[in-house]
Structures are given as C-alpha cells and as structure tokens.
C-alpha cells in the first residue's frame, strides 16, 4: 500500500478496533443472511454454494473479531463481540444487512459486496498492520471465488430470460444506493489510510467501479445513477432490518446469560 510511507503515523487503539469491526461485521452480518438460505435455494447445488460462501465469511468474521477483542484488551472474545454488542455498536455496511429478498436480490447484494471485499482485501494484504495483512491474505482467496460465483449468476440472470433480466435490474436499482457508503471516507477511514493500515477509499471505489461495470455490461444491466442519500451503517446508524437480524443472532446468548455452549 502506498500509504506505507506514512506508517509512522499512529491511530488510537479504539479507532483501530472500530476499523476492524467495520470489516468483521460486514462479513458476519452477510454470513447470517446467507445462513437463512440453507435448505431454500433454487437448486440443491446453489444451496451448497451459498453455504460455502457463508462459511468463508463466518471464518473471516471470527478471525477479525478475535483480533479486535485482543487489540481492545478488555477481554472480549469473538462471541462476546458478536452476541453481546448492541445494534448501534455494529459497524457493518448497511448493504450487508438488507434482507435476502429473492435469489436475484441476494446475488446482487453478494456481487456488490464481493467486488468491494476483493478490492479491500487485496489492499489490506500490504497493510501496515501485519496481523490484518495476514487475515486479508487468507480472505482474498475466498473472496475471489465468491466473486466468481456471484458474477456468474449475475450474468446468467441479467442475460437470461426477460423475466430474470427485469427482476435483477430491479434488485440492482434497489440495492445500489447502499453502495455509496462503502467509498465515502469519514474521519476514521482517512486516519486509517494515512497510517497505512487501510486503503484510500476513493481509489478503492474507482477500482470497484471498473470491476462492477465490466460485469454489468456482460450481464446486459444498466448501472443505476449515483444515490443522493448516503447510509451510515459503518458508524452504527442502520436500516430497520439489522435489529431483527440481531434478535435472531443473539437470542440464546441473551436468554442464558453467562452460559457456555
């Protein structure tokens, strides 16, 4: 990462933890969504494919949460962070928590995030934080496959039947507004970039755009106009859907406080 030159700059630990949580929570929340599909996919093989992606994302979330807990130094484990934080403390991209909808909605959501995560992890492989770089190096291989899976499906649906084309264009139009958040840097993103821990989001956005446009063209899909509204999930301000998702996720841990499983 070019910002390595500035690696002398330090970021306060709570900010580094928040940065890790943004990445971890996006994987965790998306995995939770994909878990809802298991047993209900359009074909058995697709069920297995979505489950594989869910497992990879959960694995990423666990590594990142465990690291965030250690860095924080307050004795919180991956499970304490996943099951006992409140909604406003979840820092996932708002896009990840959007409901599964139909298979087309799920594929569009997946594609947009896969393309983002691939750019992100590729950059993080040279992070000034060696532990994060190591996690990214593992995640990047998984993400490359996720993107292959979701791109292939996006193209099939976009260039399939008239019905599938219409449906998936609709999914894209609905979900597109959530992508702005991914590349609009806030103070935390800027500090992380200056310290060489993470990438410049503007540059990341440009690379993402190019990648996405290429697949959209192949899928015969129209790129929606930029959204005037920006979501702030990465700052803890979510859509209405996250609360329900967490109610499911956290139900047992909250009901049986202190129990081990």
């Amino acid at each position: 990462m070019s910002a390595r030159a500035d690696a002398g700059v330090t970021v306060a630990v709570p900010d580094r933890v928040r940065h890790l949580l943004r990445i971890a929570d996006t994987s965790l929340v998306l995995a939770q969504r994909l878990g809802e599909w298991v047993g209900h996919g359009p074909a058995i093989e697709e069920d297995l494919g979505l489950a594989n992606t869910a497992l990879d994302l959960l694995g990423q979330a666990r590594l990142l949460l465990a690291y965030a807990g250690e860095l924080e130094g307050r004795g919180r484990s991956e499970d304490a962070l996943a099951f006992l934080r409140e909604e406003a403390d979840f820092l996932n991209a708002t896009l990840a928590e959007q409901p599964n909808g139909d298979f087309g909605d799920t594929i569009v959501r997946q594609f947009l995030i896969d393309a983002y995560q691939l750019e992100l992890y590729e950059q993080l492989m040279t992070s000034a934080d060696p532990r994060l770089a190591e996690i990214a190096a593992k995640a990047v291989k998984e993400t490359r496959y996720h993107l292959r899976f979701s791109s292939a499906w996006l193209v099939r649906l976009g260039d399939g039947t008239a019905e599938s084309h219409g449906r998936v264009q609709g999914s894209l139009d609905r979900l597109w507004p959530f992508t702005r958040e991914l590349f609009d840097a806030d103070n935390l993103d800027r500090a992380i970039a200056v310290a060489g821990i993470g990438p410049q989001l503007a540059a990341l956005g440009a690379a993402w755009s190019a990648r996405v446009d290429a697949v959209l063209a192949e899928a015969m899909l129209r790129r929606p106009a930029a959204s005037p509204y920006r979501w702030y999930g990465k700052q803890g301000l979510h859509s209405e859907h996250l609360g329900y998702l967490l109610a499911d996720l956290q139900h047992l841990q909250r009901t049986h406080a202190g129990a081990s499983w």
Partner: protein
Amino acid sequence: MSDAHDWPLYEIFIRARGGLDHKHVGSVHAVDATMAVEHARDVYTRRQEGVSIWVVRSGDIVASDPAESDSLFEPARDKIYRHPTFYDIPKEVETL
C-alpha cells in the same frame, strides 16, 4: 408444478492429489460446463477431496455394452504369458 426438464447432467471426475488419476465420483446438474465445475466443487470437494476437476456431459460418454463383455474382455483371459509372473527365472539370475 413440474419443470419440463432439469438442467443437463454432467459426470464429475476428480483428481484427489497430484500424481493420481482423475476418478469418477458422481454427477451434478448444471446449465453449462462452467457451472458444472462450480457445482462439482461445492458438492464433491467440501473436505479437500480434490485438486482438479473434469466435467463431461453425461450424454457424451460412450460406454461399452455389458452384454458384449464376453467378446470384449474374455479373450484377454488366456493370455497369461503377458504377465511377468508367468516366467520362472532361476534365483541365481539377478535384477531381471
């Protein structure tokens, strides 16, 4: 309720490790070969069972007819002289 037809069937062959032959493991349904490879990966290699996958449209496989087994394979049975164990070589002769 019925789909008039399912996606076509592909036979799956997997190389378990470098150095081994591809071995038939089963089949998947897929619309094309690309998808068949993806499906084979998800269905047959969840536990690192493979390092390489071949897919072949089931309809493209031509098989010998079991009813003809006698004429296809029996003639090889009495050619025992093809096997090294057929020959008794004196112990004194080494490295043969």
